[in-house]
């Protein structure tokens, strides 16, 4: 029996294949050759040929693609052209920066957005609502990299409270690591907080109009109790969806922020690989991003099941 789950997973794998083929093709037609980039302006043609042979770049496209796929399937992501080390290790090294960064950003945005969104919705059209709306719109409108600049100016350069960039590594201690990630996380979080606030607000508003909130009030629950016990819980379903999607956006979208704060994260690895035409790294990273996005989408679907009992049993 073909369950929807199996079909979904098959769909995921197909999408990944499509992404991998697409990225491989794009990388192949991109102008620029890793060998000539590595060897600089004075390299002679035979040196170049030697390096291309060493890197396996002289093989036909299809062979390279299949080799790469076979490698990925067996967990061998290949070796970076420029760094000369296994890509899996590179990704892992970067992930310990990007992942906590994204998590912190999510935490911060949730901490801002949920209360703000719920309060705005519960006091619709009040001054709080307008102020909340204004602030969230502002968060959305202000480019993250600009906020990053201002944050550095204020908290690192003027006040000197937090490091202006760089990452000391987790071996330097949890506190030091978190400190280094705090400003970037805030810069990343604000925009997400804006989006999340609005989603929360409209979702709570929607739920507040539902009959069951009135039922709760008819039981004698106060406005607050009905809001938090009944409305918010149900409103969280769409919020969770957005949250899941945002997580992937955060990881992927941290490129600019990682640059400004000089964090050795995944986004910067991808950019660097692109500019160095370190094709193998780029392919792996993009495939990793794609897998992440797709898995997240899938997890979000599953989280529906957790949050909404209606979807648990047989569907309608």
């Amino acid at each position, binding site marked *: 029996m073909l369950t929807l789950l199996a079909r979904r997973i098959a769909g995921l794998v197909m999408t990944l294949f499509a992404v991998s083929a697409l*990225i491989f093709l794009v990388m192949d037609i991109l102008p620029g050759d890793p060998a000539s980039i590595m060897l600089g302006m004075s390299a002679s043609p035979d040196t170049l040929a030697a390096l291309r042979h060493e890197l396996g770049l002289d093989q036909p496209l299809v062979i390279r693609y299949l080799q790469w796929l076979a490698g990925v399937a067996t967990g061998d992501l290949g070796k970076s052209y420029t760094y000369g080390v296994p890509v899996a290790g590179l990704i892992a090294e970067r992930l310990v920066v990007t992942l906590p960064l994204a998590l912190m950003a999510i935490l911060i945005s949730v901490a801002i957005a949920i209360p703000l969104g719920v309060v705005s919705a519960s006091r619709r059209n009040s001054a709080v609502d307008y102020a909340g709306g204004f602030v969230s719109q502002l968060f959305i409108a202000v*480019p993250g990299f*600009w906020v990053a600049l201002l944050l550095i100016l204020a908290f690192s350069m003027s006040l000197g409270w937090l490091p202006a960039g760089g990452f000391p590594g987790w071996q330097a201690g949890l506190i030091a690591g978190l400190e280094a990630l705090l400003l970037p996380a805030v810069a990343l979080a604000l925009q997400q907080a804006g989006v999340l606030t609005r989603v929360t607000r409209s979702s709570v508003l929607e739920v507040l109009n539902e009959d069951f909130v009135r039922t709760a009030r008819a039981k004698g629950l106060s406005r607050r109790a009905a809001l938090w016990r009944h409305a918010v819980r149900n409103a969280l379903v769409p919020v969770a969806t957005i949250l899941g999607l945002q997580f992937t956006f955060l990881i992927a979208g941290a490129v600019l922020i990682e640059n400004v704060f000089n964090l050795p994260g995944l*986004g910067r690895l991808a*950019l660097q690989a*692109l500019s160095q035409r370190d094709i193998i790294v780029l392919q792996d990273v993009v495939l990793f*991003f794609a897998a992440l996005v797709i898995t997240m989408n899938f997890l979000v679907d599953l989280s529906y099941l957790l949050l909404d009992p209606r979807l648990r049993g047989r569907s309608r």
Partner: protein
Amino acid sequence: MTASTPVSVRPRPWLAFRRPNLAIGATIIVSLVAIALVSLVWTPLPPAKMQIIHKLKAPLVHGLAGTDQFGRDIASMLMVGAWNSLSTSAAAVAIGASLGTLLGVIAAARRGLTEAFVMRVSDVIFAVPPILSAMMLGALIGTGRFTAITAIAVFMVPVFARVTAGAALQIWSRDYVLAARGAGKGGVLITVEHVLPNIANQIIVQVTIQLGLAILTEAGLSFLGLGMPPPAPTWGRMLADAQTYLATAPWLAIMPGLAIALSVFGFNMLGDGLRDFLDPREKGRA
């Protein structure tokens, strides 16, 4: 108690403007468009004119908004930047919205494999971080306005495809669509006559929101040097150039930053306001 004097309620569309969002959004956007249009025929100074001796002057000391590191007039650059930002974003959203909407309504009309295919393609596009795909595109076809437009449009397509497909599917479940099918109409006719007019509001709202997003993205691309080439001023590149002057000449960063924030804010407000205005649940009570 009180006798019921009939209270007449005539439609008063201008009342919509009492909603602050719509009014604020419309005002900002209309002014921006006006400024952008004016910049086509007039700016205080030619935006590319350099006066190195006047470099890095503060606002009002030299020119309305000061000068940059080459002594160019920032106010003039902002004006032309408005045109560049708006026109690029508008073109991108126009392409993305029409393609995405087309895909969306087709998916909704055909369901099944077509829908699955459209959704998978969106997944694939979504799966590659936009900045990266933009950079790859830039590497592929060179940078410039065309690249920026394409990169943004490509990213918009799945957004619109999803929004449209979702909205269209709802319309497809309405009884009037059933009635149209009962009358013998096919997918194309129903889409044109019933589906599109009824999801137009949602698309319009989405367009305004995505316009804001497009401006942000365009700024991000320009920030990374993937936007229009110099000397055409763009807000994103002004911001990128200003980065290192943050401490010495903060207005260089603040001005274009504000311009971006203001226009995105304007579009979001407009979108919000339109959503409220167009939402049938919000009007026509009693």
